[in-house]
């Protein structure tokens, strides 16, 4: 980190390439997110959406290309924990919660607080911690299930718990991979509303297949295909784009 902002974007990807055993999952992906923006990312299966999140969060190292956060922080040089500490939170495509912890403890573990082993071993709970947990559980509608084990939640409830954990982390940037998969229409609409309200004071990247949901979000859309961006703009504009139509209909 040299302290000097290389870009004014919060998140900046340029020419990112990733290959797995010869298969190119990302082929020169470029993307810029302005601070405070919410962006939807769509694209057919295998387009590289999840791989892009893996690159941003340090799970996968790109073979080529730049990934910068907050103007000057090179994310390709950091590991998962360091990137999370910078303020990038992630919700996984397959909901991943801590199954043998209670709903409440899942939120507690996500809550913004010192992460060092010494701090969790000897530290005391901060004042107001329970109020924060209560508020988050109320936001995601899981207050009544707080003492239940997360492993016993339904698929939709796990999705919500993960969103709650993201909120608890209070990251600057939220990466949300397919948040409404497996949800009913009513739950989907609620999730869109929740994300819009989170977007008021956070930057968000949402990956989703559900077009109605993406339309409902009402934000700029980026279309990914075969590891690169093929279109970008308002939903009505990209869905009228012949390249996008071909990608979706051609399958």
């Amino acid at each position, binding site marked *: 980190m040299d302290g000097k902002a290389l870009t004014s974007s919060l998140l900046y990807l340029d020419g990112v390439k990733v290959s797995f055993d010869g298969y190119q999952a990302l082929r020169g992906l470029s993307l810029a997110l302005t601070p405070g923006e919410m962006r939807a990312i769509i694209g057919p299966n295998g387009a590289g959406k999840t791989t892009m999140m893996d690159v941003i969060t340090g799970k996968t190292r790109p073979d080529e290309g730049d990934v910068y956060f907050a103007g000057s922080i090179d994310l390709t040089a950091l590991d998962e924990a360091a990137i999370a500490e910078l303020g990038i939170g992630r919700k996984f495509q397959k909901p991943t919660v*801590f*199954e043998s912890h209670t709903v409440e403890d899942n939120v507690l*573990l*996500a809550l913004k607080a010192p*992460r060092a082993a010494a701090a*969790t*071993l000897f530290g005391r709970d901060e004042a107001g911690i329970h109020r924060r947990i209560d508020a988050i559980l109320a936001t995601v509608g899981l207050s009544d299930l707080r003492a239940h084990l997360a492993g016993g939640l339904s698929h939709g409830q796990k999705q919500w718990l993960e969103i709650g954990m993201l909120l608890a982390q209070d990251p600057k940037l939220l990466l949300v991979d397919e948040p409404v998969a497996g949800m009913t229409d009513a739950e989907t609409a609620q999730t869109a509303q929740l994300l819009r309200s989170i977007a008021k004071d956070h930057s968000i990247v949402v990956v989703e297949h559900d077009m109605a949901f993406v339309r409902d979000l009402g934000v700029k859309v980026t279309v990914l295909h075969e590891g690169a961006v093929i279109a970008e703009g308002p939903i009505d504009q990209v869905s009228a784009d012949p390249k996008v139509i071909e990608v979706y209909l051609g399958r």
Partner: protein
Amino acid sequence: MTSARLLDLRGAIFAVVLIAAAILVPIAALAVPPASPFHVPAYVIALTGKYLCYALLAVALDLVWGYCGILSLGHGAFFALGGYAMGMYLMRQIGARGVYANPNLPDFMVFLNWHDLPVAWWGFNSFGYALLMVLAVPGVLAFAFGWFAFRSRVTGVYLSIITQAMTYALLLAFFRNDMGFGGNNGLTDFKDILGWNVQAEPTRAALFSLSAIALLIGYLIARAVTMSKFGKVLVAIRDAESRTRFLGYRVENYKLLVFTLSAMMAGVAGALYVPQVGIINPSEFAPANSIEAVIWVAVGGRGTLVGAAIGAVLVNFGKTYFTGALPEYWLFALGALFVLVTLFLPKGIVGTLGQLFARERRAAVGARGNRVPAVAE
């Protein structure tokens, strides 16, 4: 954290039993006349004292395996190293009373024609130094091992295999005479500990009590660790390691810390074991020993601490019985036990009982969905 939470009902019963044993067993052995039905004979003390050391090893193993998912198949090595550190102190206490009557060198060194005490043995005539080594040697080894393994993200079966390799390598090393730890005979013929005759009944009774107290302290430490937020992170790592990293926790540091702590507890167990059995030799590093310890934990109940201790005592009681009655079948019995527990009691004895009680309590209390979280005091 309140003390009420530190000791739940199960833990309280466990603590009471251990404290009672630490007080009553020596009385029953020393003060009650042999004719009385309440008299505890010396061999029972020696045997149960040994079981308590195994129980402490099991608690240490449960801390890393049950709570953090690190299936160590090398914990026997930490136990043995703690044992050797104590054994070296006991050897130095023999002084000139050895067969060769050499005041400065243990018999086996005289036999090998050595003239100077190896550096590794320096300081071991001091009990305090020996105790320090009981903690430090297993601790440093675990730290060094964990530093490389956890940083390279070696997990699962691969980690288990390298822990086996570690204990096997130590087995081979300690077999060598030129290592200076007594070769395949190990260390034995101990005379006294802190001036007390190790063979004498009062000393044995005291060692028994100390083992019970060490087990209790080890349990309380492990319990406090698992009850803390640190402990919650350990369970999170066990359940979803990469998710824990994405939350910003440095998984390798958590593993390193708990692994080192556990190894030191195992070292203490070994140190208490050696004066009670009167010998330590390289066979304590045998890979099979470490695997047996895993079976104790599985039988008693992974992730329950108390269960691990109970499992160690029960399985070893079975072993003592079997090796007396049907020696050639012990390994088969142990294997069968492991298979049966894995198939029918995956949560082990204590885990399964706990589940039954919890179900009953829930039925009695009704849904407790709106439970107010316990406020830390």
